[in-house]
């Protein structure tokens, strides 16, 4: 097993390029990170009715997320227990049962094996059907509409795993009565990059914005404050524990112009009072830009939520959704849908330029000479503080503060540290 401490120098914040292309590192990540952490599966609104299902992935493993006939949400490895055929090949639908199209084993929407062709004639009733249901995801839980799962039965409960990032997530998930819902459809696309580059970018990279996205900002100038400092805000980065992080543009001025149409701006004003009642003044007045729940689920004010699915050391598949307040008026939802897809989907005017960076960062890490030169994660080191109002270790808005906590957690997990012993857990 690789010792991750050989790859991440947490004193000087230098990180080996091996993290971003090496097969051995990647295999260990699948085992120590993706098979252990809570991973995002989907939103409850996508499977609102009994029988509704969606296909998902946990790391590279396909899973089926189903609301069973009694209304309970479950998740199962999407592979037949007989010879391994994929049990469900559709992205979404509604089913009481799934029939494997190889030899016909049939599984109920609760994962139980309910039918085996030739059970008497060919198996002579010697197969214990109870034992051969779909492999369940060890733990499945929701946090305010977001369904997560983990294959580690010993992982702490979801609420504990999320820790204080929920303080910030609530700004998205719980600011209105009724919570959130997902607009129909998923943006899925592929990218030749390591999964950590986009995760760390959404987590805490306020530094890139005015260089990478300058063309989109210029072209959209009617919606954007011309002053770049105003875009970047006077906020902070915060790492509220467990490798999660979020960027706050404006800690106490939610009325600042956002990247989006006036209707979205107006809506924020319209719900300000309700938001303050539900969340209190700090969160009502705070404006975030983006964040990441460790390891690979990011959210963005556009408004969207996405997963960076690992597909090898140098490849990912991105799944991204538009998430809106359920109670928002239709025209506001429409404005959000349009704003998100035009800026942060595969054709998004902001998104395109991000992908160019992440793919080239990955590709150029391959060279054996390049590998001798570590990457620099020291931006804004030694500037940490804490706050009375906001949970987490707080760093400057433009810094690599959140990234350092992300890789700190990465080191702990990659070293195989038990959940009880993990040190990077920070609580206010």
């Amino acid at each position, binding site marked *: 097993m690789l010792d991750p401490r050989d790859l991440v120098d947490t004193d000087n914040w230098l990180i080996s390029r091996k993290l971003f292309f090496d097969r051995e590192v990647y295999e260990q990540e699948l085992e120590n990170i993706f098979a252990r952490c809570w991973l995002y599966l989907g939103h409850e609104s996508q499977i609102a009715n009994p*029988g509704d299902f969606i296909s998902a992935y946990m790391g590279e493993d396909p899973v089926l997320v189903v609301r069973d006939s009694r209304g309970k949400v479950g998740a199962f490895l999407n592979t037949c227990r007989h010879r391994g055929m994929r049990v469900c090949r559709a992205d979404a*639908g509604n089913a*009481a049962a799934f029939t494997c199209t190889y030899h016909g084993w049939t599984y109920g929407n609760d994962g139980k094996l309910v039918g085996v062709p030739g059970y008497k004639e060919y198996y002579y009733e010697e197969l214990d059907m109870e034992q051969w249901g779909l492999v369940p995801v060890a733990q499945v839980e929701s946090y305010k509409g977001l369904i997560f799962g983990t294959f580690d039965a010993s992982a702490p409960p979801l609420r504990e795993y999320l820790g204080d990032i929920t303080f910030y997530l609530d700004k998205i998930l719980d600011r209105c009565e009724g919570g959130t819902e997902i607009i129909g*459809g998923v943006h899925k696309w592929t990218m030749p990059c390591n999964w950590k580059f986009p995760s760390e970018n959404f987590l805490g990279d306020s530094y890139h914005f005015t260089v990478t996205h300058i063309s989109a900002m210029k*072209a959209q100038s009617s919606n954007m404050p011309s002053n770049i400092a105003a875009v970047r805000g006077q906020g902070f980065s915060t790492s509220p524990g467990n490798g999660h992080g979020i960027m706050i543009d404006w800690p106490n001025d939610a009325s600042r112009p956002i990247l989006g149409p006036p209707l979205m701006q107006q809506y924020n004003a319209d719900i300000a009072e309700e938001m303050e009642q539900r969340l209190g003044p700090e969160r009502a007045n705070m404006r975030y830009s983006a964040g990441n729940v460790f390891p690979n689920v990011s959210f963005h004010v556009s408004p969207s939520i996405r997963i960076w699915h690992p597909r090898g050391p140098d490849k990912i598949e991105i799944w991204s*959704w538009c998430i809106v307040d359920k109670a928002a008026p239709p025209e506001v939802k429409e404005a959000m*849908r349009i704003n998100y897809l035009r800026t942060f*989907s595969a054709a998004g005017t902001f998104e395109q330029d991000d992908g160019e960076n992440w793919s080239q960062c990955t590709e150029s890490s391959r060279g054996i000479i390049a590998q001798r030169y570590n990457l620099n994660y020291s931006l804004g080191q030694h500037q940490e503080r804490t706050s009375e109002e906001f949970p987490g270790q707080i760093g400057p808005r433009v810094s690599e503060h959140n990234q350092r906590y992300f890789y700190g957690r990465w080191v702990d997990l990659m070293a195989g540290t038990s959940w009880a012993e993990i040190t990077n857990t920070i609580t206010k």
Partner: protein
Amino acid sequence: MPSEAIEREVEKFLFKEARLLDDWKFHEWLELFTEDVHYWMPVRTTRYSRESKAIAVLDRAHQRVDELANEDELAIFDETKQTLNMRVARLDTGQAWAEDPKSRTRHCITNIEVEEGDNANEVQVFNNFITYRNRLETEVDIFVGRREDTLRKEDGDWKICRRKIILDQNVLLSKNMSIFL
């Protein structure tokens, strides 16, 4: 049925459009669209057919079989004239890194069918595309699909007032969609 002369006009129009895109003449390309254009490429979802026996449906009311997203759902492009202009303005900045260096594209347009439109000055045009994109050293993407265009005669010129692009991919097999289809 539109006359053969109109069919020929439409064909020439689509070939010219493809050339403008491949030559990076985006401002001229924009002139081929009406002010009220809707340029739309919905996402697709893999679903079982109504007849499929792979699943036993629990609730028909919640079984959906159409692959294409609706207009109020997600799309890769959902553009107006103003946002197409904005996209081109972005390319003009010299800082649109995903297209700097530029993509090398070749738009091949085939299977053109021209039918009557909803209005007298409009025609409905179905056409298939194979668009090859090559970028930097070895990046290659091939986008194949169908377009359903509505062309309108405005001041003697054909213009596109609606384009629905049906890309034959579920997961977009590309790191972005930084070109136009």
